[in-house]
């Protein structure tokens, strides 16, 4: 993964965000956000109050005070807009980084007659075919229909090792902006210009097609509810105050109202959502909707392929077991010789285990005659002079040995069973049709994967391993890796059925996949993450695409989803808890002039009614920019169990939300009291 953690506020981004903060003052945009829209109305009213005071109306307090209130309200709006704008700018910058790689590259377009011409990449349409040779930048997303090539995908993934992509199978997909290093491929364009996943993602971030997620809608209802409560509180306060003969100025009313409604979360809400998608993008995951990120936070079950996710790609040799009466070195030597020309990863791992250098063996010598693995013999080997060395599955070697009239040693038979029982694969080696020993191959579980599963378990997520292995092997690996469940001898439809079963029981399921035969399951899963290297069908079916092709990426996606919800929740709590202190600042200030006894309620000992009100609105305004970094980075998630997490966040943001404004307002008041 690319290391991309730039400072939160880059200069260029700041400028762009500032500009947009003003553009977003348009009430049509603000209407989507009921909390900030009411602040907008309050600001407009204050503008009129200022004007009327300017032209001699003395009933609403002095001009300077009214202007300050107006300015602070205006700033509150700007700050909220700025939060959204900076989140958008960061998301866009991130997306632009990715997009830059694919801007205007020449494409070698093939027509029906097989002739080619050079066109600009932006003019490529879905269904057209182009070809690329070594050194070309691939002009658009597509699928290889002919050929094989090594491709440098570092522009997108940050991974420098080249990858192989070939037509047919599950590794046929190429991404625009990546570079062909060798060979020649013919590619069919799979997306219209401007409709690639990346383009869709950029549109999401820019807000043009950003839909509110269900959770955001529910939260907006809650916030709108709180706003309504305070409309009622402020409107009814007018007759109450009249009854008590304490006239309240419009500025005081609006200040009270703006302070009480949850402007902090209202101002930061959309920034939090955008930042969530942005964080996903930073993890090199393209999400097709904001909802997908949110759903990821709720996942109960996670389906993972064994190979490549839980275990390192292939099996490795882990032990040599010589037969009775066979010298260990003699057996090792036979094993090495049988594997010298074996290009499979298993073969290489035997050489590795024996800890020898290939250069010690003169394999070019005419003495060596290599026998390739065939489906019929199911064994491979080498003839060194007259010595016949063979290596293969136990039953094929048994055939070989018994045909020659020798017996298959019972201790080897036991070893074979023993290895199978613990999830390994036994390879028996014979020399001149006599068994010399058995090599144990084991799946190598990725380092630190156990800890990752442990973390998932603490988050409350059940992990399920999917493998083509037999149940015995599957069980052993599942236990060794620490997954909760497994599907052995899995066929594509088994995944699908498993997902459906879990969903029917009410759980949310996530899975990763890359093959075309994964597509239905990816579509069925609540969160389907397709590898970028996977087929187009898989990418279409999932709701996220992982540019790194990293199967454990889901863990990060889940955390991003949880962070997103938590940031909303904690800032809502903080915002509402703030009201307690604001009440204690403003309520005495409203009535103290006519009911001096209420001085007892002025627990912060604020200087004057004007300074108290101003301090409260100023605090209310500046808390928004202060919290922008938190909104963008997200509240940190710790898998410590739901109740402990609630206690922790309630303590920090609930209790903190009550205490912080008392201190903040008092400090601001000490400053403001110099003027009012």
């Amino acid at each position: 993964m690319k290391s991309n953690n730039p400072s939160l506020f880059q200069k260029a981004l700041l400028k762009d965000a500032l500009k947009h903060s003003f553009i977003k003052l348009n009430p049509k945009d603000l209407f989507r956000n009921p909390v900030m829209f009411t602040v907008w109305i309050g600001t407009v009213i204050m503008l009129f109050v200022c004007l009327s005071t300017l032209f001699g109306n003395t009933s609403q307090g002095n001009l300077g005070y009214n202007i300050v209130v107006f300015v602070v309200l205006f700033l509150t709006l700007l700050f909220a807009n700025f939060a959204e704008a900076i989140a958008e700018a960061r998301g866009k910058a991130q997306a632009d980084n990715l997009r830059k790689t694919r801007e205007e590259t020449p494409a070698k377009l093939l027509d029906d007659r097989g002739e080619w011409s050079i066109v600009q990449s932006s003019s490529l349409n879905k269904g057209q075919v182009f070809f690329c040779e070594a050194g070309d930048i691939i002009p658009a997303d597509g699928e290889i229909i002919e050929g094989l090539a090594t491709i440098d995908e570092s522009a997108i993934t940050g991974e420098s090792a080249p990858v192989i992509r070939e037509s047919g199978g599950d590794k046929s997909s190429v991404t625009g902006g990546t570079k062909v290093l060798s060979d020649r491929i013919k590619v069919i364009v799979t997306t219209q210009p401007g409709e690639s996943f990346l383009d869709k993602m950029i549109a999401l971030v820019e807000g043009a097609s950003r839909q509110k997620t269900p959770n955001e809608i529910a939260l907006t209802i809650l916030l709108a509810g709180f706003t309504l409560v305070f409309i009622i509180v402020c409107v009814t306060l007018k007759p109450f105050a009249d009854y008590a003969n304490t006239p309240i100025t419009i500025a005081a009313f609006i200040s009270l109202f703006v302070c009480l409604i949850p402007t902090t979360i209202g101002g930061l809400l959309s920034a939090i959502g955008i930042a969530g998608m942005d964080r996903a993008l930073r993890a090199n995951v393209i999400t097709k909707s904001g909802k997908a990120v949110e759903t990821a936070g709720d996942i109960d079950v996670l389906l993972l392929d064994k190979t490549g996710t839980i275990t390192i790609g292939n099996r490795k040799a882990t032990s040599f077991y010589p037969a009775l009466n066979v010298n260990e070195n003699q057996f090792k030597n036979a094993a090495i010789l049988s594997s010298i020309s074996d290009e499979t990863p298993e073969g290489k791992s035997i050489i590795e285990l024996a800890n020898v250098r290939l250069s010690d063996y003169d394999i070019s010598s005419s003495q060596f005659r290599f026998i390739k693995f065939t489906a019929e013999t199911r064994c491979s080997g080498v003839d060194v002079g007259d010595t016949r060395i063979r290596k293969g599955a136990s039953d094929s070697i048994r055939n070989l040995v018994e045909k020659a009239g020798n017996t298959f040693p019972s201790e080897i038979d036991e070893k074979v069973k023993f290895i199978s029982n613990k999830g390994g694969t036994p390879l028996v080696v014979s020399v001149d049709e006599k068994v010399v020993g058995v090599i144990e191959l084991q799946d190598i579980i990725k380092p630190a994967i156990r800890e990752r599963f442990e973390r998932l378990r603490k988050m409350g997520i059940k992990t399920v391993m999917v493998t083509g292995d037999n149940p015995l092997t599957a069980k052993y690996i599942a236990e060794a890796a620490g997954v909760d469940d497994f599907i052995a001898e899995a066929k594509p439809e088994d995944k699908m059925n498993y997902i459906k079963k879990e969903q029917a029981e009410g759980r949310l399921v996530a899975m990763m996949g890359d093959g075309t035969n994964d597509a239905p399951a990816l579509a069925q899963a609540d969160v389907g993450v397709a590898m970028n290297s996977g087929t187009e069908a898989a990418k279409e079916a999932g709701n996220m695409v992982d540019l790194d092709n990293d199967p454990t990426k889901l863990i990060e996606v889940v955390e991003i989803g949880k962070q997103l919800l938590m940031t909303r929740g904690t800032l809502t709590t903080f915002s509402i808890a703030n009201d307690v202190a604001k009440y204690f600042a403003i309520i005495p200030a409203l009535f103290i002039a006519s009911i001096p006894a209420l001085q007892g309620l002025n627990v912060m000992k604020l200087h004057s009614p004007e300074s108290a009100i101003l301090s409260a609105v100023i605090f209310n305004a500046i808390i928004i920019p202060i919290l922008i970094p938190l909104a963008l980075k997200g509240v940190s998630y710790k898998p410590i169990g739901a109740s402990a997490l609630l206690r922790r966040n309630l303590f920090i943001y609930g209790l903190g939300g009550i205490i912080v404004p008392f201190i903040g307002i008092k400090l601001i008041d000490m400053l403001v009291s110099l003027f009012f």
Partner: protein
Amino acid sequence: MNTEILGIITTFLIAVALAIPFGKYISKVYEGSKTWLDPLFNPIERIIFKIGGINPLKEMTWKQHLSALLTINLVWFLISMALLMTQQWLPLNPDGNPNMSPDLAFNTSISFLVNCDLQHYSGETGVSYFSQIWLMFLQFVSAGTGMAAAAILFKAFREKSTDQLGNFYNFLVKSCLRILLPVSFILALILVFNGTPMTFEGKDTMTTLQDGHTVDVSRGPAAAFIAIKHVGTNGGGFFGSNSAHPFENPNYLTFMVQMIGQLIIPLSMIFAFGYFIRRKKLSWMIFGVMTIGFLLLVTPNILLEQNGNPAITSMGVDNSLGAMEGKEVRFGAASSGFWSIVTTVISTGSVNAMHDSTMPLSGMNQLLAMMVNAFYGGCGVGLLNFFIFIILAVFISGLMVGRTPEFLGKKIEAREMKIAMIIALLHPFLILTATALATAFSQFTASTLNNPGFHGFSEMLYEYTSSAANNGSGFEGLGDNTPWWNISTGIVLLLSRFLPIIGPVAIAGLLASKKYIPEGAGTLKTDTSTFGLMVFAVIAIIAALAFFPALTLGPIAEHFSLY
């Protein structure tokens, strides 16, 4: 220890101790499983079902439940209007009390229908015995209505996924017959043996020791009425001065019995919920939150009332018995402070002292108790109100732990939030708006106030808070039998009764039909003290935030002026 305090603690503990087994009994009643009272009630119930043409096994959806509930309430309302406006000509009117005016009949009918029992009349002169019996019937069925609504909620969370939530009439009949009736019967017996009248004869004449003067003494079928007044958390007194009247509440024993009587059903319903949905721990969470809220309100009241009024002390009057103005000597300051909070947290609204005369902050706590209206609360409806706060708390805390909020395996989404928010908003909306109108139209209200200034404001605020909480107690300084008060409180009563029943039942119904999500390691448990704290915070913040300015201009301003 001070015997006054000891008496209070004993009373409360007896109520809790009785509530746990009784909660189990209630759960069995709604389940329809066997109880030891079956031989007595089964035949009666069969007759009622037969006459009413009710098939108790016919399951209803939440919408059918609500339409049944509203329809039968409308029928009771119409009958009530007719009876009260013609009582003069109807039987059982030995004292010859006149017909009610339409606006008073409207107010009284609604008030008893909605389990509020705000009374703008005096029992001795305002109603006939026949009307009293009718009102007694309403006291049973209005409590039964609330309990039946809660039973729908019970049912919704017992099954994994269903829209069949039992039969409304079955719940209603069972609530009245098998739960309210036996408890009321015991209570009435105790009252009769302690001197409360139970007769259909008219006023008695008593010759006083003073020069052979004679006094007319009102009587009537009071014991039965007073029993259900408390058991059904109704609160409407048989006599004008409610449980301060020596016939209505003769001695300390009847004080204890009446306190336990009104606590028993709301407390038992909490435990019944836990037994019914097989989550006893959840009951303890609810009970814990409610009890902490109750103690936070009741403790200052007892202390304030015991310490007396500094203004009276400064006049040189001995105040050592506590603030005794408006209190009965046979109960004392502490127990009157206790009663004033029990009767306001629970929507009973019966009084044994003048709330108008309590200390300013005691008055504020009585107001707060009704503004929250979910610390124990009325029969069944207390739990429904609390349920709304649970939904809000679940939502916020779900977000705080990074999970889409769920309660008892059901996801809380936009639709439920909308309903919960409307219901949570309704209470402050009704109280504040109605009080604002009353202060704005002072031509209708100014002359009815007993006191000017802050206290007068508290009187108006109290009247509407009491109406909106379906409580029915009055600050009693208010001259409230005027068209303005009769009609405006009547409207508040109606809105604040049925919407807060419709809302929670709708949410429960919607949740019941949703897919059940099994609890996993990541699920936020709702039966823990942490979650209880969250619910408490939500309740405190909503009540405190919405009502703080109003309380400042009433009791708080009065308090700071006094001290």
